[in-house]
């Protein structure tokens, strides 16, 4: 089974692109499955089900979404194998600009959209920096110049990635993307493979349920903002 990880900021067009991609791959119905990792709510289940795509949704809830992802990804792979998929696609929303659910040796796609602001590519960090392919969506509603500047800013952060412009509504561009997917590696397990980037360190008292504010409730790994006089 091939495994592909797709990540990107909320509402950047991940589901739209994945659905158009599956359509474009033209495989037997049900042979590509999706696992969506999200925080609290998601409306993606419906979109996938409507398209006849087998889907599993996981909510991290009170856990760090990144840690949740790593601790469930191998199970996702085993679910995919048991379901006899030819390909499994994971969709995860970039929730903190710091996450990057990419694994060494596994095709990593980052989806970002032209509407998110011209400097966004320079802000989103590992999510963009460690992707093999960067898909840029919503080019149909901004000017050519903005698309070019946006792409330039993406290259500033990740010069080795392939950029592909995809229209999530019409599917224009998914054709080239599907060519890469066909080359994705076949796997049986992720055991002993490594994440491309560490997940956020998260072992402070607030991780474990503390809600009170103040120095005396803060324990564990902390990072303090330094305020300078004005």
């Amino acid at each position, binding site marked *: 089974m091939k495994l592909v990880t797709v990540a990107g900021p909320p509402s950047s067009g991940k589901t739209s692109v994945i659905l158009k991609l599956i359509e474009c791959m033209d495989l037997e119905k049900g042979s590509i499955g999706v696992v969506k990792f999200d925080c609290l709510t998601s409306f993606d289940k419906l979109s996938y089900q409507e398209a006849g795509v087998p889907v599993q949704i996981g909510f991290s809830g009170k856990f760090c979404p990144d840690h949740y992802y790593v601790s469930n990804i191998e199970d996702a792979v085993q679910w995919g194998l048991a379901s006899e998929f030819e390909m499994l696609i994971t969709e995860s929303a970039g929730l903190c600009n710091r996450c990057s659910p990419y694994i060494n040796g596994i095709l990593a796609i980052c989806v970002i959209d032209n509407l998110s602001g011209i400097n966004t590519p320079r802000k989103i960090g590992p999510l963009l920096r460690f992707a093999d392919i960067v898909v*840029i969506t919503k080019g149909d509603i901004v000017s*050519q110049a903005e698309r070019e500047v946006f792409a330039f800013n993406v290259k500033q952060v990740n010069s080795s990635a392939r950029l*592909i412009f995809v229209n999530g509504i019409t599917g224009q561009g998914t054709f080239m993307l599907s*060519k890469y997917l066909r080359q994705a590696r076949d796997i049986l397990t992720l055991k002993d493979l490594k994440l491309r980037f560490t997940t956020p360190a998260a072992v402070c008292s607030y991780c474990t349920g503390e809600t009170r504010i103040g120095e005396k409730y803060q324990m564990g790994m902390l990072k303090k903002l330094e305020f300078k006089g004005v």
Partner: protein
Amino acid sequence: MNTADLITYLKSTNLGRILKDYPIAGDFLANFRLEAISKVLPLPQALEEVEDETLAEFGLDTYGLLQEFCMFLENFTRVEESTGRVSSLTILGGFNKMKEPESVELTIAAGEVISVVGPTGSGKSRLLSDIECLAQRDTPTARQILINGIAPDDLRRFEMGGKLVAQLSQNMNFVMDLTVREFLEMHAKSRLTGNAAEIVEKCFLSANELAGEKFTLDTKLTQLSGGQSRALMIADTANMSNSPVILIDEIENAGIDRRQAIKILAKSEKIIFVSTHDPLLALRANKRIIMKNGGISKVIRTSAAEGKSLAAIEQIDNTLQELRNRLRNGEIITEELLK
């Protein structure tokens, strides 16, 4: 400079000097939150004053950052060979929606304008996306696109990805909160050419030639009217975009000087496709592709006779334009004006 020389240069040169030599280096520092770093020291020494944690957050150490810096400068100082020259584009027919063969072989040279006409659903957009992805008999239409007479292999298709085609359509808007000047400068900067000021000026002037109503360099993008935005997009695409092919989707009602627009675009030595219902635009083109049932049903070369009727159509259009201007200026419309 080769990589080793560049590393030596980065290790031994003050950041201040580097920023003078490579202004884009400022972006690199900002990307890693290092704008405030000492400029009188070379990068490795300057980094000693930075908390380790800052770099670690990006998954880097001093050496890693130096390597990234080197890669960044190599990338953005390389002369843009991007797509290479495209002197011709050929469309080899596939099949229409009824699976009937399209018997066309159409070669278009740089500087030519081709219009695409046909009812809604006839396959205009499909044709344009076949061109965009350099279809090789592997899309639903089974068309094939050649560049300079040669079928591009997959590697070339990927390399050209996104750079071959610039697109312009009625639905596009500016979403940046910048003035026209800032916007043009930003676009010029991303092209890394030396003559930014000159090209900004050129774009601005030609945009104003197209726009019904003039705007200034200090106008906010978001304050431009629909027509002014379209005019700026066209001028910008013609003068600044590197893409050798331009696809234009229905810009007729935009309140711009369409004749001038086609002229400016054609002058840029690009291959231009205009999907349109506007006779003035359709006949301005050297050839027009007639779409039917998802296929190219005909290709018509604009004849001398059509060229003549173009003059008459222009007259009608001028009259309409004149009426529009008068309406705008609060004047009275009389029958006299229609003669």
